[in-house]
Structures are given as C-alpha cells and as structure tokens.
C-alpha cells in the first residue's frame, strides 16, 4: 500500500470517529431530554462523555491526517475546498465546545436534583431544551456534514 492509501484510510477512520461520535452524543442527549427523573437525565448525559472523547480524538486525528494528506499530495492549502474545510473544522469544534458547556451544566444540575429527591424540575427541562444550546450543537454537526460534503465533491479540484 502507498503512503497516500494509508493516510486516506486512517483519515476516513478518524472522520468516522468524529461524525459517528457526534451522532452518538446527539442520540444520548436527545434520549436525556425525554426523561423526567433527574437521575435518569444525569445517567444519560454522563454517558455522552465517552462519545465526546471519541469526537475529540476523531476531530483532532482527522485534522492532522488531512493536513498530512494535503502536504503529501502536494496540494495547496489555498485551494478553495481545502481552506473551506479547515475553516468549517474550526467552526464545528468551537460551536461543539460551547454547546457542550450547556450540556455539562445540565448534567451537574441533574446530578444535584437527583441527590435532592429526584423530582422532575422545570429548571432542568429548560436547561435540556435550551434553544441556544441546541442551535450550537446542531450548528457544530451541520459544519461537520459540510466538511464531509466538501471532501466528496471537492469543488474546484
């Protein structure tokens, strides 16, 4: 196998960890919004931490291997779709990090409420369904999908 094939293969595996991990975070977080008891919400949000680690590792490796691939193939970072993909990577990571803070706050709140009687709470519901946090998380995921689209279509070569 050539170096390009190795780099491309592991670049895609990293991209899978990035996007599939984000899918896992989204599924677990959505499941949490459908629970009433704070202990159940806390458990489900706690599980997202494992998936977040996969997203972090995948996003970083995808960037490093993608940059290595660009250099190895003698492409220019100024090529439109490559620079757009790099910008979208930053957008995705930044939005995901800010959105993740809201989820962490909701988990801390759920853990506290669980230890104080485990009764449903409006404050927790508001925290879980915050429009701002959802917009940030969806924005992060859409940016990741846009990167995938750029990788597939490679507009402008």
């Amino acid at each position, binding site marked *: 196998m050539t170096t390009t094939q190795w780099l491309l293969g592991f670049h895609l595996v990293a991209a899978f960890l990035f996007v599939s991990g984000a899918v*896992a975070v989204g599924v677990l977080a959505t499941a949490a919004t459908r629970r009433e008891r704070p202990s159940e919400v806390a458990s489900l949000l706690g599980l997202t931490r494992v998936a977040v680690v996969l997203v972090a590792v995948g996003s970083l490796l995808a960037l490093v291997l993608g940059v290595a691939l660009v250099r190895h193939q003698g492409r220019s970072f100024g090529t439109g779709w490559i620079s757009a993909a790099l910008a979208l990577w930053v957008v995705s990571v930044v939005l995901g990090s800010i959105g993740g803070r809201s989820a962490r706050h909701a988990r801390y709140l759920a853990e506290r409420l669980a230890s104080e009687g485990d009764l449903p709470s409006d404050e927790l519901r508001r925290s879980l369904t915050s429009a701002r946090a959802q917009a940030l998380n969806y924005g992060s995921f859409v940016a990741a999908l846009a990167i995938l689209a750029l990788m*597939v279509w490679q507009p402008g070569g």
Partner: protein
Amino acid sequence: MNALLFLHVLAAMTAVGLLMVVAIAAGARMWRPARLAAIGAVVITIVAVGLGEGLAADEDAAGTWLDVSRGLAVFGVLLGGAALIVVTGLAQSRPRWRGSIVAAASVVVSIGLAVAFVMSAKPS
C-alpha cells in the same frame, strides 16, 4: 454519483454512531436505549449497503477491497448488529452478559471502522 457517495458515507457514519450508543448504553445497563440503537444501526446499515451497491454499479467498481468490505459489512456489521438486537433484548434478565455485550458491540464498531478503512484506502 457524488450525492450517492455522500449519502453512503453519511449512512455508514450514522450506523457506526448508533453502534457506539449500543456499546456505551450497554456498559451502563441501559438496555432499552441500547436495543433501540441496535435496531436503528441495522436499518441504517441496510440503507448504507444498498447505497454502496448502487455506487459500485454506477462506477462499475470491482476488486478484492470491494469484496472484503462487502463481507465485513454484511457478516460483521449487519449480522453483528442483528445479534446485538437479540442479546440486548435478553440482557435485562441476564445481568452477567453486560461485559460480553459491551465487548461484542465494540467489536462491531471496530469492524465498521475497518470497512471505512478498506473502502477509502482500496488496498488491492
């Protein structure tokens, strides 16, 4: 053709993401979310395999890499996912299965990643 490739990769990424949920939820003995995720993973894997076959026909693709990735996708991810549906359904009354199910789901996730590697690197 690019649209087909995009949807194929997106479906595969979603399927692997749901398999990750199976492993993570099974680790916490949350059998209902684990089982629902396993069902979703199997359905979406079927979609991904169907899109892949359409893509292969369009491109007239052939080679060992394609046969290997087909084999891994069908016998590893699809059948593995179907087995996970069954075992996560049975696990509520068999708490000792937790470790084995987490290990099995992790293996199926790894097979999914191996398919991604073979499909993109095309070693042959």
